[in-house]
C-alpha cells in the first residue's frame, strides 16, 4: 500500500510523543480503542485557565496510519480552545494524511480520542468545583 509523504513523515517522526500526569486536574486523558482490534490510542491535553490547550501528548499502539493520525491531531489541537478542538472532524485528518479507505477508521479513532480527552478534563473540572 502506498502512503502519502505526510503520513510517512508523521509515522517516522511522530510529534508530541509522551505522557502527562493523569491525576493533574489541568490534564485531560482520552484512551480509545482496544488491543483486540489492533488499535489503542491515548491522547492527553493540558488546558490553561483560559480554556486553551497548551500542550498535547500521545501514545498509540496500532498501524502506521493510527500513529500518524494521532501525531497530527496533537499538532492541531495545541493552541485551540476546547470548543475549537472538539470540532475537529475525522474527515479532516483523513484528508490531510490521504488515508486509504481501509484506514479511515484510524482517523475516527483520533476524533474519538480528542473528544474523550476533553470529556475527561471537563469531568475533572466539575468534580473540582463540587468540592
Amino acid at each position, binding site marked *: 500500500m502506498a502512503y502519502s509523504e505526510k503520513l510517512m513523515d508523521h509515522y517516522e517522526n511522530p510529534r508530541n510523543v509522551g505522557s502527562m500526569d493523569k491525576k493533574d486536574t489541568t490534564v485531560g486523558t482520552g484512551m480509545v480503542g482496544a488491543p483486540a482490534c489492533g488499535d489503542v490510542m491515548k491522547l492527553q491535553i493540558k488546558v490553561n485557565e483560559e480554556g486553551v490547550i497548551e500542550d498535547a501528548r500521545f501514545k498509540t*499502539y496500532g498501524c502506521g496510519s493510527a*500513529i500518524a493520525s494521532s501525531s497530527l491531531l496533537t499538532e492541531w489541537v495545541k493552541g485551540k480552545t476546547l470548543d475549537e478542538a472538539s470540532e475537529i472532524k475525522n474527515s479532516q485528518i483523513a484528508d490531510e494524511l490521504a488515508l486509504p479507505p481501509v484506514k479511515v477508521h484510524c482517523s475516527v479513532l483520533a476524533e474519538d480520542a480528542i473528544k474523550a480527552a476533553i470529556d475527561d478534563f471537563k469531568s475533572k473540572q466539575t468534580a473540582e468545583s463540587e468540592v
Partner: protein
Amino acid sequence: MKLPIYLDYSATTPADSRVAEKMAACMTIDGDFGNPASRSHVFGWKSDELVSEARQHVAALINADPKEIVWTSGATESDNLAIKGAAHFYQRKGKHIITCKTEHKAVLDTCRQLEREGFEVTYLEPEESGLVDLAKLEAAMREDTVLVSIMHVNNEIGVIQDIAAIGKLCRSRGIIFHVDAAQSAGKVEIDLANLDVDLMSFSAHKIYGPKGIGALYVQRKPRVRIEAQMHGGGHERGMRSGTLAVHQIVGMGEAFRIAKEDMAEENARILALRNRLWEGLKGMEEVYLNGDIEHHVAGNLNVSFNFVEGESLIMALKDIAVSSGSACTSASLEPSYVLRAIGRNDELAHSSIRFSIGRFTTEEEIDYTIQLVKSKVAKLRDLSPLWEMYQDGIDLNSVQWAAH
C-alpha cells in the same frame, strides 16, 4: 549487502538460475517448445521426454513412482483436486471430512465449498504447540469419515505435523489421507513409499522453481481414486486435462532435482541462520516464539513482539521483507487465524512477524535484521500505551476496553 533484505521465503522464493535457464530453453523456435501430446513428430517427442524427466525428478525427491505424479497449476489446485476429487469419488461411502483450523485457505475454503454441497467437516483445534493431537483426531473419526486433510508444515508457524502417525491412523480406518506439502518439500524428508499418505500437494515456487506449477501425488498401491475437476483432453491419465506447460514443468523438475541434491547441506546452513536470528532476538523483553520449536522447519521463525502492532512494525522494518501474521488490511482487523487457533491472545496475535530464511540468505543479513528489529521494536514501544501500562504493572486483561 543489498537492501531490502528478502526474508519471506515462505511466501515465495526466487527461481534458481539453473531453473530459469532450463525453462528458457523450452520457449522459442530454437528451443523445445513442442506439445508433449503431439505423437506425430519429433517436437512432441522431445517435449514428452523433458516432461517425463521432470516427473522423475519430482518423484525422486519424495520417493514416489513417477506415475503417481499429476501436474497441476500449483498447490492450491492440488488441494482442490485432492479434496474435492476424493470427496466426490468416495461420497457414497460417507460424507464426513476432518481437517485442522490452522490449514492453508486452499484447504479450508475447499472444505467450506464441500459443506455447501452437503458434506460435513470437522475442524480440529490444534494444541498450543500448533500440532494436531492424535487422540483428538481419532476421536473425531466416524463411520462415515472418508477423508482427512492435514498439512505437513504450517506456512505461518512452521510446525511439522507427524504425518507418519496420522497416516497410520487413517489407513487403519480405511480413510483417505491428504497432505498439503507445499511448505515441506525440499525442506523435510518425505518418503512416500513408506508413508501411509494417499494424496500429497506440491508447489514449485516455494523451492526455487517457477510460480504457476505444482503437482499432486496420487498413490497407486493401494490405488486412490479421485474425480477430475478439470475436463478436456484427458491429460494426466484423465485426472487433470490441459496442455502440459512444458517450461513450467521442466522448471519444477529442475528445482526438485536441485533440492534432492542440496537438501541436507542447505537445511543445516539455514537452521544455523534461524538459530542465530532467534539467539539475537530472544533476549528482548516480551518476545514469544510461535509454534513448537522441536518440530519446526528450519527456515521459519514466527515471533510475537508484545505491545507492538504487527503492521506498524512491518512499516518500520521496511529494509527487510517479512510478513505479518496479522492481516490487518481490512476494517475488521482480523488477527492471524493460525495464531488465534493455537491460543495466542489478541495482542500477541496482532504483534507477530514471520521471518522466513532461504537459499540466498546470508549471516550478514541476519545480523543486520537483529539490530534493525531491536531498535524499531524499542522505538514503537516508546510509542505504545500498552507497553507503558505493562511497565506500570497494569494487567491489560483487567482494563475495560472500548472495542470499536
